[in-house]
């Protein structure tokens, strides 16, 4: 009995001493952090994609609490995360629409010509810097997968020399947008279904020389969607662009595009 008692007492005494030391340390040495940082970090998805412009979710959370960043920059978290964060921080949330990446090119190997046989490292920027790229069209997708390599969600794959985004996996972080040497990836509303898959603004004859499916700026899509007043399309040189503020709804214009570069939901077309 005494043995048990001594043991208990000794351990308790040692424990008490240790507790005292820790208490003192906590009182005089501890570093206080804003508890909201933890809460905000928990509300963020934790993908560490960097799409918000900060080095990971923790960094963004710290900036949010410090007030140097505004909520709403987290695309993967979407509305749920943003409103949650706004609640924690006590500010009004802005509704954000889910955006996904769109590769504005449909010139596969069987549609767009290649002017040379590229031999070198498998990277778009490197290929683009080698004699201007092996693709005949200098605006088109090179297909060496720089976007696929940076995608934190593995939502991009290369098929037949062309990058294709899986809409369901894409979180709209925008990393691919900045890494593409041809700048042909755009973040578009996930709800939009009709897209112009071309990025070449030069005149028709030059486009048709290098690509079988390049936009020549014939404006038939505009005509078929209710004319200029309807405002479903904008034009940059000889290139049509969907006005995503006011996207066309009538899918019949897709079949009427003479160049076949307007597609309906291309994200799903390849059977992903």
């Amino acid at each position: 009995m005494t043995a048990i008692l001594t043991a208990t007492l000794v351990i308790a005494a040692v424990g008490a001493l240790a507790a005292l030391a820790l208490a003192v340390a906590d009182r005089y040495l501890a570093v206080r952090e804003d508890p909201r940082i933890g809460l905000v970090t928990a509300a963020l998805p934790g993908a560490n994609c960097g799409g918000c412009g900060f080095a990971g979710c923790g960094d963004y959370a710290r900036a949010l609490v410090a007030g140097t960043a505004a909520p709403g920059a987290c695309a993967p978290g979407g509305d749920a995360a943003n409103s949650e964060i706004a609640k924690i921080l006590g500010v009004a949330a802005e509704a954000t629409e889910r955006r996904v990446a769109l590769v504005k090119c449909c010139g596969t190997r069987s549609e767009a010509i290649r002017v040379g046989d590229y031999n070198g490292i498998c990277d778009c920027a490197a290929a683009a810097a080698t004699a201007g790229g092996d693709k005949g069209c200098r605006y088109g997708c090179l297909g060496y997968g720089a976007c696929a390599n940076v995608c934190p969600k593995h939502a991009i794959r290369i098929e037949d020399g062309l990058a294709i985004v899986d809409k369901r996996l894409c979180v709209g972080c925008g990393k691919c947008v900045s890494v593409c040497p041809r700048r042909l990836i755009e973040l578009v509303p996930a709800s939009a279904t009709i897209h112009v898959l071309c990025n070449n603004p030069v005149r028709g004859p030059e486009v048709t020389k290098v690509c079988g499916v390049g936009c020549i700026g014939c404006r038939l899509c505009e005509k078929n969607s209710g004319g200029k007043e309807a405002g479903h399309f904008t034009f940059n040189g000889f290139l049509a662009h969907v006005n995503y503020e006011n996207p066309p709804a009538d899918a019949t214009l897709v079949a009427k595009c003479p160049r076949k570069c307007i597609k309906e939901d291309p994200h799903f077309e390849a059977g992903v």
Partner: protein
Amino acid sequence: MKTVKAQFGFRGGIHPQYHKDLTADLPIERLPLPRTLAVSMSQHLGAPAKCLVKKGDAVAKGQLIGERNGFISAPVHAPAAGTVTAVEPRQGPTGGWADAVVIETAEDPSGAPVLMPPLDWKTASREELLARVNDAGICGMGGAGFPSAVKLAPPPDKHCEYLILNGAECEPYLTGDCRTMIERADRIRLGVEIMRKILAGPAVRIAVEANKLASIAALEKAFADIEGNVEIVVLPTLYPQGSEKHQIYACTKRLVPPGALPISVGCVVENVGTVAALADAVENGVPLTERVTTVSGDGVARPCNVLAPVGTSYADLVAFAGGEKDGVRKVISGGPMMGFNVPSLQIATTKTTSGLLLFTAASVFQYSSSPCINCGSCVRACPMQLNPAYISRAVEANDIAMAEGFGVMNCLECGACSFSCPAYRDVTQFCRRAKASIRAKAAAKAAKK
């Protein structure tokens, strides 16, 4: 004047097969004026020139068609008389697109060429000479084409102690400089004297690789009675002996710190061809509108050294060289070590096109690279004493910051590492890739500020 052997070698370097015998003994031939010329507004690194003509304009030979536009920039002149048929984006030798003035040359030009008034360099002031170098559009004809006027006007706190003439021409196949030194040694001498005046009397070192005996002899003859501190420095035949930093070291034992320009150690390096062009510009008032290009390789019927106007299409050059042989697989603008691959012959020459090489499948092939085996060939070959193996592995793993830590920004892109890699890795391309993305990042950062 004396001829000395270079005392200070550098570690590294490689011995590629030179193939200079194909054209080294052939005199420079003048190309008959081509029907069309496409003169790019982006003749060199730095800002492209501002175009001064439009479609339909008639231009005279030597007329200014592109204006200096920025600090590192040089004006562009019409190489021949004719009519401007278009001003449109064209692909240049480096693969980039820039506006080019397309000139349909006149068969018998009625107007006289527009020349600048000749200057007597002995009486002209330093400022006048410098203005002439600038107005004549003189830029480095060896590699990147740095405008000479910028080089020859060092910042006031720097003094040029050595003027180094780069006659190394270490790239295989190329013999343009070699021939220029033989045939135009007197012009080079005149250019040297003018530059010496502009730079306030520096010592002159003419660096020539040991495999150009005829060039050395010609220079010795032309410079025999020159006054002042002038030496011909015979460099060992080793690639990349033509690199500025290594030449400065070989001639003066001075080391250019990483990221610094030669003037930081009191040196100005200029290509021999540029010096000859400079002499023409001062004495005869002729702007820089033509240059010597070596057309060679096993894909051309008759390798030769051609003096052609800037803007000549590669197809015209090849036609002059007897046409292309069957089975050409690769076309290179420049030398095989640092030159640019071009996708077609529809590209026009610039002031920096030192060579045009056509190779058949017998000498080039599609390779596939395997993982680095750490053999150290590239480390031994690197003239900058970097570790290309590690840089390439870091870039391969997308770790640009690590590559920067290994000093990739010091890379010359000379290609010695890729040349010696037994695994056929694109080491140089990895370095280039890392440099490009580091520069882009720095530019983005600067733009943000």
